């Protein structure tokens, strides 16, 4: 059985310099309580893998504002001028990956694949640093898996085994990241007794989840 930890306890386990995957898409489906606690505990030198950096003052944007992050691997930063400012000032390294490629790279990390071949980005700037592979006369980029020390994800419901159910577009990268990190910390809206989520409704089996915290944030 996994009983919820306090947000403080869970985040205290994360060392400075960790590589962290954070779920969410423009803040939707991001673990807001966990993010705020990362800032409160003054974490430094994090590498964050996420779809985006949301906006200034919001979700992952809070980590950027607090200069907690050395590097981000994301698909876009267009909604966060502070991320762009830090990138241009060379305070922050930004690695951009096409969104579908980013999703597959995280999945590959969690699924034990050595990489995937995608047509996306061939002959563009996204091809820099990747290997071009020809298969049957078609060109693909060999994109490498991503893994992390910690995944900080958000779910709507969890039971006390850690079986998770996500909600609508708050799902996004969360189930993929739950597979791809050494330690998985989930922030949930609601805890249910074991057996209350039907097997077909479980999006992420509890065996993948290490720690559960209850959300303290207004979503």
């Amino acid at each position, binding site marked *: 059985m996994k009983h919820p930890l306090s947000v403080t306890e869970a985040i205290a386990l994360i060392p400075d310099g960790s590589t962290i995957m954070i779920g969410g*898409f423009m803040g939707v489906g991001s673990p807001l309580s966990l993010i705020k606690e990362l800032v409160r505990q003054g974490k430094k030198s994090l590498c964050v893998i996420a779809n985006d950096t949301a906006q200034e003052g919001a979700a992952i944007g809070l980590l950027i504002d607090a200069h907690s992050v050395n590097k981000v691997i994301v698909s876009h930063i267009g909604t966060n001028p502070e991320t762009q400012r830090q990138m241009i000032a060379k305070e922050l390294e930004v690695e951009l990956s096409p969104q579908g490629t980013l999703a597959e790279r995280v999945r590959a990390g969690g699924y034990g694949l050595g990489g995937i071949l995608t047509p996306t980005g061939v002959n563009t700037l996204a091809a820099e640093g990747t290997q071009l592979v020809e298969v049957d006369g078609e060109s693909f980029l060999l994109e490498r898996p991503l893994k992390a020390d910690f995944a900080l994800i958000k779910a*709507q419901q969890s039971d006390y085994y850690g079986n998770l159910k996500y909600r609508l577009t708050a799902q996004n990268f969360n189930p993929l990241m739950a597979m791809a990190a050494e330690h998985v910390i989930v922030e949930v809206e609601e805890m249910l007794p074991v057996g209350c989520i039907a097997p077909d409704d479980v999006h992420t089996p509890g065996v993948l989840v290490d720690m559960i915290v209850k959300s303290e944030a207004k979503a």
Partner: protein
Amino acid sequence: MKDKEIIARRIAQEIAPGSLVNLGIGLPTMVAQYVDKNDHVFFQSENGVIGIGGFPEGMENPSLTDAGGSFIGVLPGAAAFDSAFSFGLIRGGHLDMTILGGLQVDEQGHLANWIIPGKMVPGMGGAMDLVAGAKRVIVAMTHTAKGNAKLVKSLAFPMTADRRVDLIVTEKAVIQPTEEGLLLKELGPGCTLDEVLSLTDATLIIPDDLPHMDI
């Protein structure tokens, strides 16, 4: 009619009933307003849903937004999924059409819409996958930006994909990139050929028959 409404109305005519369509953030999102509800068009948002159905007016939920982060509603028969599945639909050729904004399109039909080096680096988001994977790619953009032509001989900015887009719709013209170059298909409402040519840097192929948009 405002420029953006012209563009959105004209693009709506390209959408077949029952098709699966992804709308980019901004101008492309407007297209949905001009599609006949009875056509049962399925709008996908790449953050993980098929079946977007307008604004939820008073029923906003923080777990249901479009790719721009705006609250949305869904129609009966909607489906939600994760990001890998969403881009499986896109990359796997299951998406009938994507409608995207553009910074520039060149004579080869290549689109640039994700970066102005040294100035603006929004990132490609889902754009590269969408252009590479959708069955049909339509660019929705104003004909010029701050007086500068956006239909250019060759791109000043890095391209989004090496795939030729299928159609470009501005308030002044409908243009179809072909193997031979950019084919002018229609003129915007009240627009003349000379006006289009004067606002376009790229060479256009001019057909004998050049109607105005019927919108």
